[in-house]
């Protein structure tokens, strides 16, 4: 049987090696030219709690996981129960033979109890190799050449000892040979011959985007699910003359980035959930003092410590409104590694052009899950655009003309030229208080009003520089889905499947939450049934968008808050339920 689209899940307890085996498999699939998406489910714990990696592969670009899985490797016997319902008919389960399978309750699947632990102990005196033995078995089931997985092991274990690599290779071969003797059912996956693609997580893409954008200062406090950005930058920033610094807390990190930006650098900080709470005051500062700043925020389930390692879109309200007073900001929301890269790059240009904080709002399912992508969107369209930053020559013109440089000069567009502190001839005075154009504290009505208007003016044109919503499907369809972030893939797949059931649907994916493309959204959604997909319980996205339509429009929220991204079937059944109720 030939598979065009297939999903595999490797599940166990933290420490069982399920993530490694999954990564190895995904990379092997990517090398043979398949597009993959992986969904990580892991606990906020080092060892002993359920962990799994689901990999879906397809000959075409995909953006989300599927409703079912074709095969399960259960490295920890009990894991089989948690995932049983997801296995499709005629699917494959690989488990340890020590597990007694009588009570499984499913006779429509192929069950392979294997001596995983026994073999690993016999061969290597270590149980840990059971993951690669199981992977070898799976490789045979899906007709993947051992060489392909071996190359992938080499990639993942680069720098490890020869013995470890060799043992992994032996374990893999053992898996293949077990399969040859036991196999009842074998599948073939469709092959593609174009291997020139990249396997990347959203976090890695954000880090790449920052380096490409000329960010040379990064300060943060490690927090899941954003830490990989830090780790990637820590490795590469010094090579470009820059610095990363792990701070005592989130407050210090954002304020350091503000200091570096004041000094003339492109600076960034990254965080998640509770970390963003702590950064809020400094976002007000960046807005008020007109300091360009990029803040990367990967959402997790909340509130408080919440679900540290799982996804959510619960911070929409916070990101849009964090800070006291009228705080300027732009908020970009990527869905893919490509967009994580591009939006991060563009965030630096927007931050410097308008001298405001720009937030790149991601979520665990986008930031940590890896996808195979065609290419990094890095071409002539992305340039360092530093806005009104004064060169030494321009500063010299000020001095020659006998003009006093004013950091907050009142200009036509509300944007004042920025001089770099340390440039001879000008004093650069930033202030978090209300101020006169030259930056001195001033609370008098005259300047207060002018300064507020100046900051307002800057916001008028940002819409020209931020990513537009993405529309997909038939413009005349009476129903439309709206979503952000990880909802992209499930929404796209829902459209196709709903059409087969006679329900015409389109989707609109919002890529900038602030400023909002209100007219565009209005024109595409007016008088339609609008279904807003969101991963929170308060309908935060729906409440925010509802001002576009007023009260009369049929707007419904499709909510999920389990910590996982949508599955297409969940959207489909909700849409059908709502439509049925309305008719």
């Amino acid at each position, binding site marked *: 049987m030939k598979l065009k689209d297939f999903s595999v899940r490797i599940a166990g307890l933290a420490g069982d090696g399920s993530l490694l085996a999954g990564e190895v498999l995904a990379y092997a699939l990517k090398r043979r030219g398949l597009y993959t998406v992986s969904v990580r489910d892991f606990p906020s714990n080092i060892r002993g709690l359920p962990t799994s990696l689901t990999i879906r592969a397809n000959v075409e670009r995909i953006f989300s996981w599927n409703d079912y899985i074709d095969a399960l490797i259960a490295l920890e016997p009990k894991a089989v129960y948690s995932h049983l319902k997801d296995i499709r008919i005629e699917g494959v389960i690989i488990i340890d033979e020590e597990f007694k399978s009588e009570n499984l309750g499913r006779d429509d699947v192929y069950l392979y109890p294997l001596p995983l632990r026994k073999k690993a102990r016999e061969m290597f005196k270590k149980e840990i190799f059971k993951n690669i033995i199981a992977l070898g078995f799976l490789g045979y089931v899906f007709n993947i050449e051992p060489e392909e997985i071996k190359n992938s092991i080499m*990639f*993942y274990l680069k720098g490890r000892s020869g013995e470890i690599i060799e043992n992994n290779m032996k374990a893999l071969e053992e898996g293949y040979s077990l399969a040859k003797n036991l196999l009842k059912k074998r599948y073939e996956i469709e092959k593609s011959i174009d291997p020139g693609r*990249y396997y990347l997580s959203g976090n890695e893409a954000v880090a*790449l985007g920052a*380096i*490409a954008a000329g960010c*040379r*200062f990064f*300060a943060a406090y490690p927090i899941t699910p954003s830490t990989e950005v830090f780790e*990637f930058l820590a490795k*590469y920033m010094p090579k*470009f*003359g*820059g*610095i990363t*610094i792990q*701070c*005592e*807390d989130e*407050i*210090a990190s954002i*304020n*350091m*980035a*503000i*200091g*570096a*930006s*004041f*000094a*003339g*650098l492109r*600076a960034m900080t990254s965080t998640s959930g509770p970390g963003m709470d702590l950064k809020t*005051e*400094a976002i*007000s*500062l960046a807005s008020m*003092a007109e300091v360009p700043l990029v803040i990367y925020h990967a959402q997790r389930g909340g509130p408080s410590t919440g679900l540290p390692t799982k996804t959510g879109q619960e911070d929409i309200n916070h990101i849009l409104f964090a800070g006291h007073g009228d705080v300027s900001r732009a908020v970009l929301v990527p869905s893919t590694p490509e967009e994580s890269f591009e939006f991060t790059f563009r965030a630096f240009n927007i931050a410097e052009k308008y001298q405001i904080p720009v937030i790149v709002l991601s979520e665990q399912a986008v930031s940590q899950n890896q996808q195979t992508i065609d290419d*990094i969107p*890095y071409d002539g369209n992305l*340039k*360092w655009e530093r806005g009104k930053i004064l060169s030494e*020559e321009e500063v*010299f013109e000020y*001095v020659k003309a006998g003009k006093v440089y004013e950091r907050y000069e009142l200009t036509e567009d509300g944007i004042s030229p920025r001089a*770099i*502190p*340390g*440039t*001879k*001839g*000008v*004093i*650069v*005075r*930033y*202030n*978090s*208080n209300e101020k006169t154009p030259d930056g001195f*504290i001033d609370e008098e009505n005259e300047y207060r009003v002018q300064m507020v208007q100046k900051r307002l003016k800057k916001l008028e044109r940002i819409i020209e520089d931020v990513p537009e919503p993405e529309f997909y499907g038939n413009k005349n369809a009476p129903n439309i889905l709206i979503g952000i972030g990880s909802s992209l893939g499930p929404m796209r797949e829902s459209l196709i499947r709903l059409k087969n059931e006679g329900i015409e649907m389109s989707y609109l994916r919002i890529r900038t939450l602030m400023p909002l493309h209100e007219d565009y959204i209005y024109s595409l959604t007016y008088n339609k049934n609008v279904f807003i997909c969101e991963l929170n319980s308060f309908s935060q996205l729906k409440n925010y968008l509802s001002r576009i339509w007023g009260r009369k429009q049929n707007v419904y929220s499709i909510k999920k808050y389990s910590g996982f991204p949508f599955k297409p079937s969940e959207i489909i059944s909700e849409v059908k339920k709502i439509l049925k109720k309305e008719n």
Partner: protein
Amino acid sequence: MEKLLNFEITSVKAYEGKKSTWCPGCGDFGVLAALKQALFELGISPYDAAVISGIGCSSKFPDYINTNAFHTIHGRLLPVATGVKLANQKLNVIVTGGDGDGYGIGGNHFMHAARRNINLTYIVMNNEIYALTKGQVAPTSPYGFVKGTTPYGSKDNPIEPCLISLSAGATFVARGFSGDTKNLKEYLKEGIKHKGFSHIDVLSPCVTFNEEYSYDYFRENIELLNGPFARREEAIAKIMETWRKGKIPVGIFYVEEKKHYELDIFGKEDYSIVEEFKTQKMLSKEELLKLIENKK
């Protein structure tokens, strides 16, 4: 262009900022005068200095001095200043704040800046009171202090900031008195010249809300220690001994020559990422893709 921009600073007037709004007689005037004089005598032009402050009376400092400046938010002056310094070490970064600002809300940053030994000069105008909010206790106020929010007397014990910075790893620790600008100016000069984290606590009377700690009180109770002491432990012991006698220790307590944070990271003095970046071009696509290939 060179010639026109090559200003020679001929008088301390070059550092004159806006007219201050401090209360007449405020201790902070002495600190302001001492700092201007120190910068002038050290030949640091206003263009090469950046004064970073938090919030409070003392944090209005940047308005009253003519240098690059950033008036930031409560307690966060040290992180902002750290970002400035790491971006461009050619700037002389002076951090000016108060005791509530730096020892209360910013207490954590204080400890970590000291342990990092970043090359900053941190001047704390310590009036042992929250003044801008019109008179409440500070972390340095004594036990039993009766003020607006502690009508029955404060139940908190005061901290000794110099012992904190000493034990956290600061490499220059001193205490001055704003009524003695002559000595204070010298401490500031030494602190600015010092490569590493310099903490200078300055007794700076609040003439409006803290009559208990007046100029006269300090004049009668300070004791000049014969520092700097050779070892950190010795400095700590001498400070504690002085307090036990009921006296307030002042002077330069401790100086240590040690590789400062930026030097440790970049391997050279006066490195400026801002300048380095000027010479950089955008990465080529190939360079970018190489980063992905090597990610593991």
